[in-house]
């Protein structure tokens, strides 16, 4: 039983990261209908930025807050320069462009910081809370708390603020939004910045565990995409639940099914994506899928 709980806790810890990146993907998808395959790379980049600020002597918390803010601006810039021109193009074009962004960001990170793994400083104190024979590390608690805080803040933003209302309106109906005076392009830009920041939170909190290198977010991206698909591409709540669920399932499968071990864990999201698409294409909590005519 101890092993079981230990695996579940490890699953929640990594699942929180998946959920954060999945939230970023969902926000962009919901507000622009665009899936940013470079979301993981943007998060990776943010983690490097945080690393850099810390290396320049800033405290870790200050470094990560600055990195998140920087990412907000960078995210808006990326939207304006790279994605806005293809916003209304075919899906294929958009996917290809985000892959170009993927490769570009990856290489720029490699160019600046190299391809050697870098150790990222611990954000939370070492140690764990012992409950019976199960140890819950402060890092696990911390990451989970960060996820809840982000999800809560996001919920409040969408439900109780004017910009949140505008973001939802733009996501659903650009024309009506324009006609009530919403500056649609600016809202999309802010949405992008926000999503990038959320991804940044995921990347930064993943960094102490995964170590820093330009490829650190590659598998996280797959898990996050699986979470977004599983939870429902337009459902932030779905993304959170699915991210945690996938984190837990992946750890249990890796821990209990010897054949899977640590290398084949990656097949878990693949199976989940496939299963979702075949049996419930709109995802767990997504709105019913309406094919475009």
């Amino acid at each position, binding site marked *: 039983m101890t092993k079981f709980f230990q695996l579940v806790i490890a699953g929640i810890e990594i699942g929180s990261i998946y959920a954060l990146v999945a939230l970023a993907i969902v926000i962009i998808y919901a507000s622009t209908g665009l899936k940013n395959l470079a979301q993981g790379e943007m998060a990776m980049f943010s983690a490097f930025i945080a690393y850099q600020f810390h290396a320049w002597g800033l405290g870790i918390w200050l470094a990560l807050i600055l990195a998140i803010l920087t990412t907000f601006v960078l995210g808006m810039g990326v939207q304006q320069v790279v994605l806005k021109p293809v916003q209304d193009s075919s899906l294929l074009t958009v996917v290809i462009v985000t892959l170009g962004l993927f490769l570009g960001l990856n290489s720029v990170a490699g160019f600046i910081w190299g391809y050697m793994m870098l150790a990222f400083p611990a954000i939370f104190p070492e140690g764990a809370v012992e409950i019976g024979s199960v140890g819950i590390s402060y890092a696990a608690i911390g990451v989970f708390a960060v996820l809840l805080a982000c999800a809560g803040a996001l919920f409040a933003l969408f439900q109780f603020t004017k910009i949140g*209302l505008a973001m939802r309106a733009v996501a*659903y109906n650009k024309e*009506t*939004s*324009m006609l009530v*005076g919403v500056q649609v392009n600016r809202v999309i830009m802010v949405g992008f910045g926000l999503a990038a920041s959320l991804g940044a939170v995921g990347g930064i909190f993943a960094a102490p565990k995964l170590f820093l290198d330009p490829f650190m977010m590659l598998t996280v991206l797959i898990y996050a995409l699986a979470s977004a698909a599983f939870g429902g591409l337009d459902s932030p709540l779905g993304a959170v639940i699915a991210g945690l669920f996938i984190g837990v399932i992946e750890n249990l499968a890796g821990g209990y099914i010897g054949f899977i071990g640590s290398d084949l864990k990656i097949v878990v999201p693949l199976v989940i994506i496939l299963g979702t698409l075949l049996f419930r294409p709109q995802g767990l909590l997504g709105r019913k899928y309406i094919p475009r005519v």
Partner: protein
Amino acid sequence: MSLLEVNNLVAGYGMVQVLNGISLSVEEGEVAVVLGANGAGKTTTLRALTGMIKTSGSVLFEGEEMVGKKTDQIVRHRIAHVPQGRGTVAQMDVDENLELGAYIRSDKAGIAADKQKMFELFPRLAERRKQAAGSLSGGEQQMLAIARALMMSPRLLLLDEPSLGLAPLIIRSVFDTLQQINTEFGTTMLVVEQNANLALGIAKSAFVLETGDIVAGGSAAQIAADDTIRKAYLGI
């Protein structure tokens, strides 16, 4: 000076020119209608007025030039536009749609009061406050669209075929409500319609649009009485 003065307005889609330089004006406080058959360019006219398509010519609103401005800037002059086919956010509920309608305002108290007014004007919406707009009946959606537009407390209300797809009885009540809004709140309206009889019934002035040109204009009574116009353009 008129509230809205349109001069030689040219607009279209891509290479296709739809409006060939139309001119019309709307006086403060009145209801004006633009009549025309399918494809005459009625929708295009309204879209041009709110900067949703490429436009040239002149649109003076309260003496200020609107051509060349972006939609959200034009809307901020408190020009409300109810597009053809409703223009509510289907996935949001009635309350949220009304909130959205007041997006450009920041007077919280005024917004709350106006919302209350809307619920008095459209009691059916009050009963359905938490229902998604998309799940309302056609008539209710049209009412919501009008209410949403009124929430910005507009200086000018543009309505694109409010009768479209509604049963005769409902159309009647929509037009009665429009008239009521005009008399009670003094809201200036420019209504685009195919249903000439009804529209002329509530309008003070009228324009007839035919493939991108205004072919007749004058007081609503005058247009309604003109047999040649009725036969040639309005089919009544």
